[in-house]
């Protein structure tokens, strides 16, 4: 029998290993393909973050540059700001802890999109409703992994109950360019890149803004 991947109270989330990601965007495309998303709707996005500074050693200034990728989708946050602001309660949580859009209620006002610091809810202009990652609920009910996790060639993505992920990979979730994690308490664990910058360091910038 397939394992139960929609367990009540499991509080599922993602793990992302920044040190393994090479920015190929297979996760993004797998997601788009699986959910048949129209142009302009991208539930999982790969953000390129780069920057640099000078290191001073004695009389020598040495450049110190960095660049790394972060694959982000919905983090099924504990304090989901999208659910808080949604006027219709269409943005709701399943018993397994994942957040989804109840399309029978959504009015398409985009307020959730305005508020989410991860850009997770996006408007599907074809339906007039908001849409977002539901951690592949249908795949999980069949005992399968989410599409993005299966697609990653370098195995940088993992998923599971957030407590298990934190035990296995640690507690880090505050890497730039992601926002202050205390706002929403994301169900996300990151194994940071060796050059990863703190969320509030302001040392770099997103270099592919139109791709995310």
């Amino acid at each position, binding site marked *: 029998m397939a394992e139960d991947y929609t367990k009540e109270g499991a509080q599922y989330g993602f793990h992302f290993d920044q040190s393994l990601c090479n920015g190929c965007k297979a996760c993004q495309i797998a997601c788009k393909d699986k959910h048949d998303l129209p142009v*302009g709707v991208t539930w999982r996005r790969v953000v390129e973050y780069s920057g640099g500074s000078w290191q001073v050693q004695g009389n020598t200034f040495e450049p110190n540059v960095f660049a790394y990728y972060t694959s982000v989708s919905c983090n099924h946050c504990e304090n989901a700001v999208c659910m808080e*602001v949604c006027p*219709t309660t*269409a943005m709701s949580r399943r018993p397994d802890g994942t957040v989804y859009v109840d399309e029978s209620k959504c009015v*398409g006002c985009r307020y959730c999109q305005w508020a989410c610091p991860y850009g997770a809810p996006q408007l599907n202009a074809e339906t*007039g409703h908001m849409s977002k990652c539901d951690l592949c609920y249908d795949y999980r009910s069949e005992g399968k992994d989410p599409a993005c996790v299966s697609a990653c060639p370098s195995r940088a993505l993992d998923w599971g109950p957030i407590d298990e992920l934190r035990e296995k990979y640690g507690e880090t979730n505050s890497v730039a360019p992601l926002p202050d994690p205390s706002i929403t308490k994301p169900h996300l664990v990151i194994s940071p890149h060796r050059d990863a910058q703190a969320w509030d360091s302001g040392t770099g910038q997103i270099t592919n803004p139109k791709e995310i």
Partner: protein
Amino acid sequence: MNIHELPMIIFTVVAQMSIGAFWALGAIQVFGRYRKLTVSTIDRITDVGMYAVGPLLVAGFIAAFFHLNDPFHAIYTMNNLGSSWLSRELLAGVLFGGFGAAFAISQWFGWLTRGIREIIAILTAVAGLFLLIAMSGVYYSTSTIPAWNNVSVPLFFFESALLTGPLAVAVALLIVWTSNPLAKIRKQAKEPLNAELVAFLRASLRGLSVVATVAGIAIFVTYPIYLLALSHGGDAAEYVASEISTSFLLWRLLLLGIAVVIAGVFAFSKVQTANQPQKVLIVLIVLALVLALTSELMGRSIHYDGLWREGLNTWQTIAG
């Protein structure tokens, strides 16, 4: 101009104008009583304005509907009053519109007693305040958008209501002074305004232009404080500060400046000497209203340009 948010720009500016107008009409009622005028006399000059507020608000709500991508689900928008300021805004809007309509209809047909009608009017004014607070809350409560999570946003909204509302009422008073459209509609005998009522009308016009001028100046003072706060408010806020500091903002302030000078200097002094509704006065007040409204619409467009999050801004944010 922020075309994507045009429905919201029109809705917020127009709804705030109707709240400000309703308050201004209430203030004239209170002022008239202080001057010991009879209620029906005061009504003669405030009713036109009051009947204009309703359609104005309805127009605003119709505009807001265009913001929704599935208006058929609009009935669900009050499901989350416990935590969503947007739900609260809609409730407040319905209350303001509902009480206002009840007051206008009972006033027109002379239903209920005067006392009960006045209670409904007070409820409308309070609902208007609730609507302004909820409207501010929709933007102010978004902790992830620094350009909105700033005390200047509720200030701008209140100032906007007190700028455009009184000017709109001033235009309505001038219409009453020039002709009496209500008497025409209701086929009543046209009584000319007596000297006492003309004096009261002029005093009201002066008061309205003073309030509008002060509100306009307040907007002027709020802008540098707002921009200063943004340019020291972290990456996302700094980005917005530099994005909105354009000639568009300059024109917005210039138009506002002209409106304030017209209302505060020319119209105010013209009213003092006018014994009849002169053309110059009408042109001045209408011009002040048109300029103030245009400036506020531009300012609200700039407000929506402030939609820039801390964290990730997706292509959908950039494209609007």
